């Protein structure tokens, strides 16, 4: 097939591409589909179930048949519609869903077996023997199902996300959309015009309709020039608005580089979140077909598509074509094709008494009743008044009328309504607020009406916003009547396809009706109608019409279907755009991160934070060696650990103490200035929530800490208490977590080390006792805060300095502490130290624990009303007798495993006899064996008992002895030296 004359392709730019390995040539401006047709390739794919040969059916994003795997390697893109893939030099495409070559697909045997594969057959068989489903039937079905394949490699391209804001979003750049954008932009509104195509014009590009007696492209070109001069109008080509979300938020994908060989340094696609005060939906309409026997052969396509290929791309799938129509629009296709020199073998019009609108044979009151051609159409059967005749043709355009593209108006579950004049569903009144349909999308597709409607709707939208718009002078449009008639399918005994991709035929609908699958959602689900990648854009209304006929009800009484986003499928990579690797989520780095990195620390992810896990030294071959060394250093010398990650909140105000009394289960107001107290927070439902320290810096000034994990949540809770529960208290809050680098200095030598850095303060036990705090200066005048608190059970402090000095302070402490054994320790050692001391952490504060379970029951003051205090005394919580215990192996070499369940020695092991579980476990260099913490039924009364720790998951069982959870210094003497 040679090219026809005219068209919007650039004949000076020749592009090469391959399809199934064969090299072809096309032109810039081609889609893959138009280029394939220009190369006489009609067979491009196979259908989903029966593997029927399929060709190109449409000229747009509604395409059900012509799906290909585009590109290769990691960029392989399955299920790409050839009708919207812009041709670029070197494009590679392959047909899909076939076994063997496309023209000899072995799975075409399914077509012969089709009587067995009627709607719903899966549900009625494959049940015996039971084990065969997963082993035999299902794998076979899965292998045959699906369409294209993923490469299984990571997508190598980059994706962006962005936000736009505008007064008016115009969706669709056809006649109505252009008029709308022009009207609004001239009025000075902020306007975004988005269109899925690579060039503006919409359906005008596919038509020969004239505007002001000149080709429409001239008017479009003049508009584009004006648009370029308007800074308040943003034109977004290759941009599909795929979904409408709440309050005027629209999702859109801009295909920035899909028409290029690769995106280079730029992005492939951008996800835009467009916040629009108003939107005009000018998305046009989609043509429907008319099911008849064997209507799915390559060469049979929508008549409007046939016309588009001829007018825009200067191609036609055959030299001799026919048109099957129920309306006037089909005749326009015939006229346009004849003007391009294509032979029209006939126009078959289901209406009686119509007249030809050009020089072609007309069969009025006739239908196409069958077709021939194994891999492509060769003949059609025409039936009129019971008489049939076959005529030769290589292509058939089917014109069943146009369905407005109402999809976006239904995204908020609004229902389209049936317009008996237009014989189509048009937007209902319950669409998304602020979205107005215009032009063909509103059922006003006649060109003059569409232009006027676009301008009027835009002016109306702006008027809602208080902006005045003048209607522009619109060009005089050539008439384009549709003359739709209600003719939905050609009855017959053979299979007539309704949903091309999923192989749903009229017979399947009849069967669904017979089996009482009549509600439209049952029909869809039973037959898979409309569930394919095209979401039934060309099928659904025809199917409703067939079902209506069967039930004797009207189409609107039979139902409509809810359109869900996205309008057309959207790549997961652009929805999940941005960084997918190490920058998938932000990293928080502690002030000593770079110092630790330089020392060779191993890091671990703790929520958003990266924390030093341990600091391996030369000669250490296992992490346990490093951790044991770090733990011992704290117990005998002094260890240093960056604890900046703990949340810090500055609490000020005259009522700060009273406020904290209501937040914490224990009393805070009695705390003296210069002192610190451990604080326990409960949730309002009575369970333990978070713990930390409360330091009183002044009468009206506290600094409280939270756990690392709950820092944000506790801050939120504090603001809730301040603003919503006790708004009359004078309290001000602000987070200072990042502002201060906080370093734990822990171990018997900690005082000696700190004395070397503080400028003047008295750190003696009397001058700065356990649980003291102060603001002071260190290292010759640097402001700092010092807290004498301990997580390890040793004499210990935490020193805080402005974050930028954390790095230098850590270096200084290491230098000055060398002779004292100063050792940095990481989160592993921190964990061991706290388990040895019996301090609860995340594994114990897991949201299930009561204060009593943690051994902190007495902290919950009954004398005041604090969050959660009352509810913590409810029957079920009070009855929970599990208590935190320490556990050691019966024999020193035994193992203690967190997550093992505890059982009474000799008892049967079931969920009912379960006595508790091990929350945390570690090797304790201090004890010289593994140790654990756990919650145990009546744990406080079972010290000394031997339990079984069962870990059937890993086939293990250990004998453990119940001990005090305080493995180190249970009296706390070391803290107070």
């Amino acid at each position, binding site marked *: 097939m040679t090219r026809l004359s005219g068209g919007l392709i650039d004949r000076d730019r020749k592009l090469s591409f391959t399809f199934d390995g064969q090299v072809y040539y096309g032109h810039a401006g081609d889609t893959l589909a138009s280029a394939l047709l220009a190369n006489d390739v009609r067979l491009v794919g196979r259908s989903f179930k029966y593997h029927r040969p399929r060709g190109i059916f449409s000229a747009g994003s509604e395409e059900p048949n012509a799906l290909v795997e585009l590109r290769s390697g990691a960029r392989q893109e399955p299920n790409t519609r050839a009708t919207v893939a812009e041709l670029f030099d070197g494009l590679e495409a392959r047909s899909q869903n076939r076994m063997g070559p496309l023209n000899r697909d072995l799975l075409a045997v399914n077509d012969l077996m089709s009587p067995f594969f009627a709607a719903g057959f899966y549900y009625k068989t494959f049940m015996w023997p039971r084990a065969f489903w997963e082993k035999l039937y299902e794998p076979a079905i899965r292998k045959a199902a699906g369409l294209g394949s993923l490469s299984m490699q990571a997508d190598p391209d980059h994706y962006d996300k962005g936000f736009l804001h505008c007064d008016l979003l115009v969706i669709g750049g056809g006649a109505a959309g252009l008029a709308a954008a022009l009207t609004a932009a001239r009025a000075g509104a902020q306007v975004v015009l988005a269109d899925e195509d690579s060039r503006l014009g919409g359906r005008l590009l596919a038509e020969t309709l004239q505007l002001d007696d000149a080709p429409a492209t001239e008017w479009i070109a003049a508009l584009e020039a004006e648009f370029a001069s308007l800074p308040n109008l943003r034109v977004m080509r290759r941009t599909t608005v795929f979904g409408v979300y709440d309050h005027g938020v629209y999702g859109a994908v801009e295909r920035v580089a899909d028409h290029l060989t690769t995106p280079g340094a730029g992005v492939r696609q951008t996800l835009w979140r467009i916040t629009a005060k108003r939107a005009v939906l000018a998305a046009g309409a989609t043509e429907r077909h008319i099911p008849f026997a064997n209507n799915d052969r390559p060469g049979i396509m929508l008549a409007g598509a046939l016309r588009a290929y001829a007018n825009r791309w200067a191609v036609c799938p055959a030299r001799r074509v026919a048109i099957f129509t129920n309306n006037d629009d089909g005749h326009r296709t015939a006229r346009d094709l004849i003007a391009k020199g294509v032979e029209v073998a006939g126009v078959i019009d289901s209406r009686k008494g119509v007249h030809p609108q050009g020089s072609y044979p007309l069969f009025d009151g006739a239908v196409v009743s069958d077709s021939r051609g194994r891999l492509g159409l060769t003949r059609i059967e025409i039936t009129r008044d019971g008489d049939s005749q076959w005529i030769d043709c290589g292509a058939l355009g089917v014109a069943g009328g146009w369905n407005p593209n109402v999809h976006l108006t239904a995204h908020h579950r609004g229902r389209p309504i049936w317009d008996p004049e237009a014989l189509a569903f048009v937007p209902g009144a319950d669409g998304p607020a602020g979205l107005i349909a215009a032009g063909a999308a509103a059922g006003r597709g006649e060109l003059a009406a569409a232009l006027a409607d676009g301008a009027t709707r835009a002016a109306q939208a702006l008027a809602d916003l208080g902006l005045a718009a003048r209607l522009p002078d619109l060009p005089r449009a050539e008439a384009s009547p549709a003359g739709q008639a209600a003719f939905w399918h050609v009855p017959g005994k053979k299979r007539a396809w309704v949903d091309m991709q999923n192989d749903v035929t009229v017979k399947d609908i009849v069967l669904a009706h017979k089996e009482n699958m009549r509600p439209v959602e049952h029909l869809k689900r039973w037959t898979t109608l409309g569930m394919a990648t095209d979401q039934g854009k060309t099928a659904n209304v025809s199917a409703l019409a067939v079902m209506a006929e069967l039930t004797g009800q009207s189409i609107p009484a039979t139902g409509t279907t809810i359109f869900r986003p996205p309008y057309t499928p959207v790549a997961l990579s652009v929805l999940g755009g941005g960084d997918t690797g190490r920058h998938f989520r932000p990293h928080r780095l502690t002030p000593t991160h770079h110092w630790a990195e330089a020392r060779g620390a191993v890091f671990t992810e703790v929520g958003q934070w990266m924390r030093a896990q341990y600091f391996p030294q030369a000669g250490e071959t296992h992490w346990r060696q490093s951790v044991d060394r770090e733990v011992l250093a704290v117990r005998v010398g002094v260890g240093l650990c960056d604890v900046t990650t703990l949340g810090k909140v500055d609490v000020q105000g005259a009522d700060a103490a009273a406020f904290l009394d209501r937040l914490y289960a224990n009393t805070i107001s009695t705390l003296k200035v210069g002192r610190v107290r451990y604080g326990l927070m409960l949730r309002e439902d009575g369970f333990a929530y978070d713990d930390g320290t409360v330091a009183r810096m002044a009468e009206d000034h506290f600094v409280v800490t939270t756990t690392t994990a709950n820092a944000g949540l506790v801050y*939120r809770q504090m603001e*809730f208490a301040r*603003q919503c529960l006790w708004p009359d208290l004078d309290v001000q809050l602000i987070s200072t977590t990042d502002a201060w680098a906080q370093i734990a200095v822990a171990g018997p030598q900690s005082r000696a080390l700190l004395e070397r850095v503080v400028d003047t303060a008295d750190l003696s036990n009397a001058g700065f006792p356990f649980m003291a705090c102060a603001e002071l200066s260190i290292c010759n005048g640097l402001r700092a805060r010092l807290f004498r608190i301990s997580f390890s059970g040793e004499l210990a402090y935490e020193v805080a300095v402005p974050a930028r000095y954390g790095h230098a302070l850590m270096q200084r402490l290491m230098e000055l502490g060398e002779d004292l054994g100063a050792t940095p320790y990481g989160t592993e050692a921190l964990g061991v130290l706290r388990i040895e001391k019996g301090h609860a952490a995340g594994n114990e504060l897991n949201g299930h624990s009561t204060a009593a379970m943690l051994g902190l029951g007495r902290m919950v003051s009954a004398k*005041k*009303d604090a969050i959660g205090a009352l509810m913590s005394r409810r029957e079920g919580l009070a009855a929970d007798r599990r208590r935190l215990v320490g556990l050691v192996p019966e024999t020193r070499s035994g193992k203690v495993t967190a997550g093992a369940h505890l059982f009474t020695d000799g008892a049967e092991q079931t969920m009912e006899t379960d006595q508790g579980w091990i929350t945390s476990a570690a090797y304790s260099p201090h004890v010289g064996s593994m140790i654990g913490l756990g919650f145990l039924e009546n744990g406080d009364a079972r010290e000394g008992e031997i339990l079984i720790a069962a870990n059937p998951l890993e086939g293990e069982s250990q004998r453990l002895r119940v001990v005090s959870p305080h493995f180190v210094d249970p009296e706390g003497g070391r803290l107070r030296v």
Partner: protein
Amino acid sequence: MLIPHPLLGPRDAQEFTYLGDAMMIDRPDGLAEGAEAAFCDYVFQRDNPAGLHRELWFHEQGDRSWLVVTRNTVTHEILGAELARDVALARRATDTPADQGDAQ
């Protein structure tokens, strides 16, 4: 979704964290007679209406205000938003339950 912040105008709902029914402003007195029953109701029971719902949103990635937003749970339409602190203070002054005030 856009939340109409009373001080800052419409803001992306992503800046906010949702808590739930605005009745949570009306915390019972934990020391009062019969407080446990009142607390069980306060902590657990919800009207959960299909329709207008007064609810608490925290402008976490913004000005750290708690807002009482009046929103339709069927259509998601928002009828108004107030600073929760103002609602809570007014509540103390007039004894109007927080989930029954008027939207702005």
